[in-house]
């Protein structure tokens, strides 16, 4: 069975959960009694979760599905009712036989509604929640007013504007004019919290999301509140900067513009940014991200929720690892080395034809391929076809660094499994690199194809490269290897092309194109396809979708996948 390898879910299916019936704004729905909390443990379903299942959004600030519940913002207060229990401890019935509902009121003031915070109040059978009632609306309006009285209202200079919950709910529940005539509380502005974070305390609504994140998710109690009451201020211990590898997540979860990223600060208004779903390529984890770009310039990476990979988080190192895409010294021209005149620009057709001619003439076994585990599955698979045709030796470069418990993997290659599964990498990865070096030294290998790696740093020195008859190099940034290339093929950064990666847990995830390639750069899969066609005569894949679907037929581990079936979150394969 071809689909056997591809399992849609790695998690075991949860045990069947008891369902209970409640009403949301008069609409009866059935919801599970237990639902996963922030750690994924089953806990009694909260009103907020139940409302979400009913398709009703309950506004909130402090609640975050992946953080412990704090219940301090009070924005999610809702009016609710419970079945009225008579003195005989049985529900009281209406005349028509339905259960009588007692709307909850203040015990000391029965004319006033008592709200409950939807984020922490568990539901019970027969409960009625009224997220759309006038009383609920009034509670939201009042909480929002409280939040706004001491807010500086400086949206024009606030980076959060456009994705600010305070702005959004102000549209829904705010008043056009403030009745607050007293002086506002002023707090420190532009506080340098750490190497990547700036804090504006006046904007802070003290929801404590950042505090909980850094304490409960990262385990680095770097942030805290000082002072009391309305003067409470978010801060770090003076002299102890907020500096762990996950600080920038606090910028994402900050519902207002209190925490801002130094990297993104005052760079671009968020409403201009085009959002492209993609994958972080800085390590084997493959965090799901959203690339924010405008006019072919990348401004930021943000994590995208994928509970099977990165939850809602990503590391700072990965997040800031986009600047090289826009570097000035990018390789932008296709080049062919002329024995007399050195490297000269060439057209793609001419270069690829020339390479194909040379490869076709190369005796079997005289070609070696050094691929990169930073290439996509499709590109590696195309290389494996070349390898098969030319009986080439191939390998890719392993990259082991430091990892942590949360997200950062020790494998700094984003697609080690792709390289393994397509058969391009040796086992263990990198073990054939010395063989290739020896082959060149001994003269057995005369042609070397290098993709995205500076092989001079991995055991194949410049003097060895000089011995080659043909050195075909594709890369994005210049290196010693690209300088020695006979054929130089400018490739694309990950944000400039589409394709798939297989992460360290065997999840095949899609890369999407956010910006156009620089100069003459072309996606590697595109020109590799041309090359493979020129060399082997195989065809049948003109688009990335077609290529992927062809690949899954031929690579056993990928059997049963489809490009469309990968969706936004990818699919795990057996590895």
């Amino acid at each position, binding site marked *: 069975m071809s689909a056997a390898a591809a399992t849609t879910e790695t998690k075991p299916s949860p045990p069947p959960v008891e369902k209970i019936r409640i009403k949301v704004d008069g609409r009866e729905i059935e919801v599970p009694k237990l639902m996963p909390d922030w750690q994924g443990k089953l806990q009694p379903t909260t009103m907020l979760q139940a409302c979400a299942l009913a398709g009703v959004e309950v506004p909130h600030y402090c609640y975050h599905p992946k953080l412990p*519940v*704090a*219940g*301090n*913002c*009070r*924005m999610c*207060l809702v009016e609710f009712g419970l079945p009225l229990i008579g003195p005989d401890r049985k529900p009281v019935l209406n005349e028509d036989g339905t259960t009588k509902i007692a709307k909850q009121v*203040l015990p*000391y*003031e029965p004319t*006033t509604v*008592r*709200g409950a*915070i939807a984020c*922490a*109040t*568990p539901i019970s059978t027969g409960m009625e929640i009224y997220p759309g009632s006038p009383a609920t609306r009034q*509670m939201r309006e*009042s*909480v929002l*007013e*409280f*939040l706004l*009285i*001491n807010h500086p209202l400086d949206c024009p200079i606030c980076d959060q504007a456009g994705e600010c919950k305070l702005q959004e709910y102000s549209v829904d529940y705010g008043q056009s004019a403030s*009745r*607050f*005539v*007293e*002086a506002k*509380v002023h707090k420190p502005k532009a506080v340098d919290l750490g190497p990547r974070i700036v804090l504006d305390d006046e904007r802070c*609504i*003290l929801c404590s999301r950042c505090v909980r994140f850094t304490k409960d998710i990262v385990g680095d109690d770097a942030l805290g*509140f000082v*002072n*009391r*009451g*309305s*003067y*409470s201020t978010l801060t770090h211990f003076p002299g102890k900067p907020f500096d762990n590898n996950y600080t920038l997540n606090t910028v994402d979860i900050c519902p207002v513009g209190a925490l801002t990223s130094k990297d993104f600060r005052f760079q671009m208004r968020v409403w201009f940014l085009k959002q492209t779903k993609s994958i972080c390529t800085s390590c084997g984890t493959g965090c799901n991200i959203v690339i924010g770009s405008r006019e072919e310039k990348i401004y930021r990476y943000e994590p995208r929720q994928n509970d099977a990979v990165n939850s809602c988080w990503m590391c700072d190192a990965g997040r800031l690892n986009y600047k090289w895409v826009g570097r000035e010294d990018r390789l932008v021209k296709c080049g062919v080395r002329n024995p007399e005149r050195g490297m000269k620009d060439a057209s793609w057709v001419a270069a690829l034809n020339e390479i194909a001619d040379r490869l076709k003439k190369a005796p079997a076994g005289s070609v070696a391929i050094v691929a990169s585990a930073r290439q996509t599955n499709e590109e590696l698979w195309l290389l494996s076809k070349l390898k098969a045709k030319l009986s080439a030796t191939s390998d890719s470069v392993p990259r082991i660094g430091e990892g942590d418990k949360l997200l950062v993997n020790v494998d700094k290659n984003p697609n080690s499994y792709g390289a393994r599964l397509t058969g391009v990498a040796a086992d263990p990865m990198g073990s054939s690199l010395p063989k290739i070096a020896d082959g060149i030294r001994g003269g057995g290998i005369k042609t070397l194809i290098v993709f995205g790696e500076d092989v001079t740093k991995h055991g194949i020195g410049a003097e060895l490269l000089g011995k080659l008859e043909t050195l075909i190099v594709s890369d994005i940034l210049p290196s010693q290897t690209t300088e020695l290339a006979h054929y130089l093929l400018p490739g694309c950064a990950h944000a400039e092309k589409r394709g798939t990666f297989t992460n360290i847990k065997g999840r095949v995830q899609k890369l999407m194109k956010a910006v156009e390639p620089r100069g003459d750069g072309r996606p590697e899969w595109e020109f590799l396809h041309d090359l493979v066609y020129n060399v082997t005569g195989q065809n049948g894949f003109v688009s990335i979708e077609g290529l992927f679907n062809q690949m899954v037929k031929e690579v056993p581990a990928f059997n049963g996948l489809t490009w469309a079936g990968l969706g936004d979150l990818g699919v795990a394969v057996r590895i």
Partner: protein
Amino acid sequence: MPQEHRLILKYADQPGYTPDIDCYLRHGGYEMLKKALALQSKDLPGGKKMSAQEQVRDEVMKSGLRGRGGAGFSCGLKWSFVDRKSGKPVYLICNADESEPGTFKDRQIIQKDPHQLIEGMILSCWANDVKLAYIYIRGEFAQGAKILNRALGEAREKNFLGKNILGTGYDLDLWVHRGAGAYICGEETGLIESLEGKRAYPRIKPPYFPAVLGLYLCPTIVNNVETLCAVKHIVAMGGAEYARLGTPNNTGTRIVSVSGHVKKPGYYEVEVGKVTLGELINDPAFGGGLRDGRTLKAVIPGGSSAKVFKAGEKFKLKRKGADGQMTAVEVDLLDLPYDFDSLAQAGSMSGSGAIIVMDDSTDIIEALSNIAEFYAHESCGQCTPCREGSLWMAKALHRLTHGHGRKQDADYLLNIAQNIQGRTICAFGEACAWPVLSFVKKFKDEFENRGATDEAKRTAKGTGPMQEMRPIARSAALR
């Protein structure tokens, strides 16, 4: 003639009574502990057994003792909620963070009769299988903490505390933990957080009910000083006998603190419900009446967070007649029985038993401003309505007391307070909203007149629209 009924403070003010253990033992101290520890399990009909501890808990339940801290919640019921099946240790904390303005009863017990509290605590701990207990005493009671520590040392020496108490195999550790000046630590979950070494942010309920998830997320009992002392007397008298004191559902004695504009401010232990508010203020045995030539203007009956009463108010109380029928009776303010239920029916509460009396020399707006400033200062800042609202009200009242009032300020204040009450994590929301709601509602004409006068003054001066008030400075007019 109404009289004090001294039970807890029986010896405290007697000449020659000292807070050391010898004096306490001479006055029958620790006898109740010995009595309780000697109790045997009792057979119940149906072949079940009732352990000695259960018997004590049962007596407390029967006594109808209601918490003396403020909420007046049944002590026996509170104990019955404790999750004893979790396998986690049960903790008991004595709430000695007496911070409610107007209250000064626990201070008397701690300073004058610390061993009574300790005995009450040991009894309560034993009855609830508690192995570790704390007295959370407010930081300002530095003397009290010293006295308690000395008393604990003495009790340890005599083996009333520590390992294998009086040879019964029961171990109990009891420590004094000092707060550091935060009113919110009087809220039980805030107190627990504070005892855990955190900012005293009250916890959300659900899920953090102390009886299930309290100190270190273990079942925890938090009781007021006076409540725990009463436990000793319940053990001495038996629950049923104790319940005969006071009035039904408002049993026992309680210490009432009377302060403000009375001749004899002080603390008076009375049977609950047997004495009226008027007697507590005016009777020579208690408050002794107002200062000469003054008349009553307002009374806060249960600590500053209780709703104020205006002089001359009348209330409709439900009374059970001789035929068992409930009838409504009109009662004057001064004839209100001082108990939990009557005051609740009159729209306020007896809270921590603190009566603050204000005579006609009091500027009611200043008084409210003073209270509002207290709450703005003491708000922990965790949840939005209280954090922002308490300071907002304080600032608005500050404006009103400094000649920057507006006609609409009365409604403005009512609306802010209305938006706070019932919407916060803990009862502090009510505590800061109720004074404002009650003062402004009952003295609305004063507030509106003040606003109108200020506006008229501004118009006359031609200063035009109201100036924004600059940051809050200390109120001056109460000098």
